[in-house]
């Protein structure tokens, strides 16, 4: 309740402003329409073509719903992306909070460390993980040397390895998403609450967390979509037994040369993620309205 009282109120007149609100939108919308929507429209067109003659057909769609392997891959993608989104957000939150509030000299170091991995190139970083997680990698060698285990733990070439690798790749993006949101929350709110006797835990629970919901949603969305469309990490850390939609799309485009089927898979992926993003922004604007009454 404290939140609502301290937040701003909004004049209802602002909502139904005229076409002027569309003007700034024109530039990005035109760029995206021309270089994304039209090309994607062409891909959607391809998804209805037969592989050879170019005749119209729904064959690729029916193949999608009847192909057990593809459906398993689809399910895997959803599970994997969901896990990654949650892991990224949970791990990014403390970092982002620290970055938003700290004034210590270490802040810059932490910031550098939070972003640095992103610059090392995804392929090499993934090799780094392979060296760590492999059956003969550091972790397994160390554990076997100590004698905790006698057989290597299955840390790579499975869901676990992929989630670890992707969480690592996407974490900086989660941090940046949350940082933006947390920096928008006035430290004065927290201070006032503490002066009024609220514990640290209560401050986090009742002030910081609710106000950072846009950042949390942002981080979850970015985590989910980046994970679902990532290729290199699942391909390298997942191995032959762990195929997700993105790896299957690559295979269809480059190896099987079945572009209609690749287009179908890409479209399904797009619809899934548009759905997720739409739900996310609905929740966000609902919350936003509640906060700003």
């Amino acid at each position: 309740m404290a939140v609502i009282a301290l937040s701003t109120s909004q004049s209802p007149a602002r909502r139904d402003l005229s076409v002027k609100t569309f003007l700034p939108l024109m530039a990005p919308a035109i760029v995206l329409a021309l270089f994304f929507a039209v090309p994607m429209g062409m891909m959607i067109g391809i998804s209805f073509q037969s592989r050879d003659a170019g005749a119209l057909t729904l064959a690729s769609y029916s193949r999608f719903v009847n192909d057990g392997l593809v459906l398993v891959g689809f399910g895997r993608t959803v599970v994997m992306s969901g896990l990654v989104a949650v892991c990224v957000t949970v791990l990014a939150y403390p970092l982002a909070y620290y970055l938003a509030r700290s004034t210590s000299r270490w802040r810059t170091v932490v910031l550098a460390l939070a972003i640095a991995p992103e610059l090392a190139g995804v392929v090499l970083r993934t090799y780094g993980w392979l060296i760590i997680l492999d059956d003969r990698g550091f972790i397994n060698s160390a554990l076997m040397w100590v004698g905790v285990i006698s057989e290597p733990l299955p840390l790579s070439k499975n869901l676990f390895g992929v989630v670890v690798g992707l969480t690592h790749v996407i974490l900086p993006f989660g941090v940046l998403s949350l940082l933006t949101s947390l920096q928008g929350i006035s430290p004065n709110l927290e201070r006032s609450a503490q002066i009024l006797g609220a514990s640290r835990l209560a401050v986090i629970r009742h002030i910081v967390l609710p106000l950072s919901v846009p950042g949390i949603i942002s981080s979850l969305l970015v985590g989910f979509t980046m994970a679902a469309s990532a290729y290199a990490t699942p391909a390298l850390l997942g191995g032959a037994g762990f195929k997700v939609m993105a790896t299957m799309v690559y295979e269809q485009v480059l190896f099987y040369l079945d572009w209609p089927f690749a287009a179908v898979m890409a479209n399904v992926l797009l619809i899934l993620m548009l759905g997720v993003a739409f739900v996310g922004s609905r929740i966000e604007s609902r919350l936003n309205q509640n906060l700003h009454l």
Partner: protein
Amino acid sequence: MKFSAFCTGVLIFVTLAANSRAETLVVNSYGGPYERIIRERIITPFEAAFGIDVVYDAVGSAAQDYAKIKATNGRPGFDVVVMTASQSLEGCREGLLMALSPKNVPNLAHLSPAMASVAGPCGAVHEVQYLSLLYRKDKLADPPTSWAALADERLKGKIILPTFQNTMAAYLVEILSVANGGDLLDNVEPGFEAMAALAKRSIGFEQSSSIMENYIKDGQVWAMPFWNGRAQLLVDSGLPVDYVLPKEGSIPLMATLNVPKNAENRRAATKFVNFFLEKASQESWVTGYKVGSARTDIDVPADIRAKQITTEADLKALHLPDLAGVAARLSAWGERWERDVVAAAN
């Protein structure tokens, strides 16, 4: 104002991209040692002989190059591209590649007709490798002679296999099928059974040849199937490895030169293709990159002749695949591979 700054940026890039020279040829192929050797053995002599500037483009794998040709409807920005016989056939069928014949590339008449026909009318076979059995000399006292050696008890947990998206995999299924009483195309049952058995004993699958290579380099793997050209590079690098053409025979990987249908410098491109197929160029390439040739009239040193495909007799040891047939079955084989072979490994 900011948008105009952006436009200026784009314009600068456009002008940078636009200053091209007069008579040039863009050749797309691979990087690494391949690039060094092709520049030295083929490109430099070609430039000297024809006065054409060659721009070398190492971007992308053959599969990515093919996708680019397809997306641009035969005008990908390069004039000659190194791909494989399968892609030549597919590209020809889709009308994306220019037809090559002795009329525009006279040296095509000197290629082995059997080889040339595998690649179809749009591909000029300029290099022949075969699927070999690569092994560690220091770990295996007696060299393997048969594909069955991969299933040897000593090699349990010491072999690695390609993923299905590596062209080696389909060829391996075919050759194992032949070795176990099946055939190359319609009766591949024995091939898949043998693969599933191998998968159980392998340490896993890798897609990239350079990663597979690393396993044998550090001694985790003692034997694996590998293209013999790359196997030879490993031998030459001083590793304790060697490779054999097993007694059941092997399947060749034919690399082709292709010209996209709407390439800008098609005349220069056919000159380049023809130059690459000259007797002298083929000899130079075979001795330089250590591969085989589809020209059986070349003269090369005995040590190279012993390991490479250079004569009609060598060709007899190879099973020439029906690549159109393979392409038509690729999807079904891919699914089968996931269900039977990959599942067996877990």
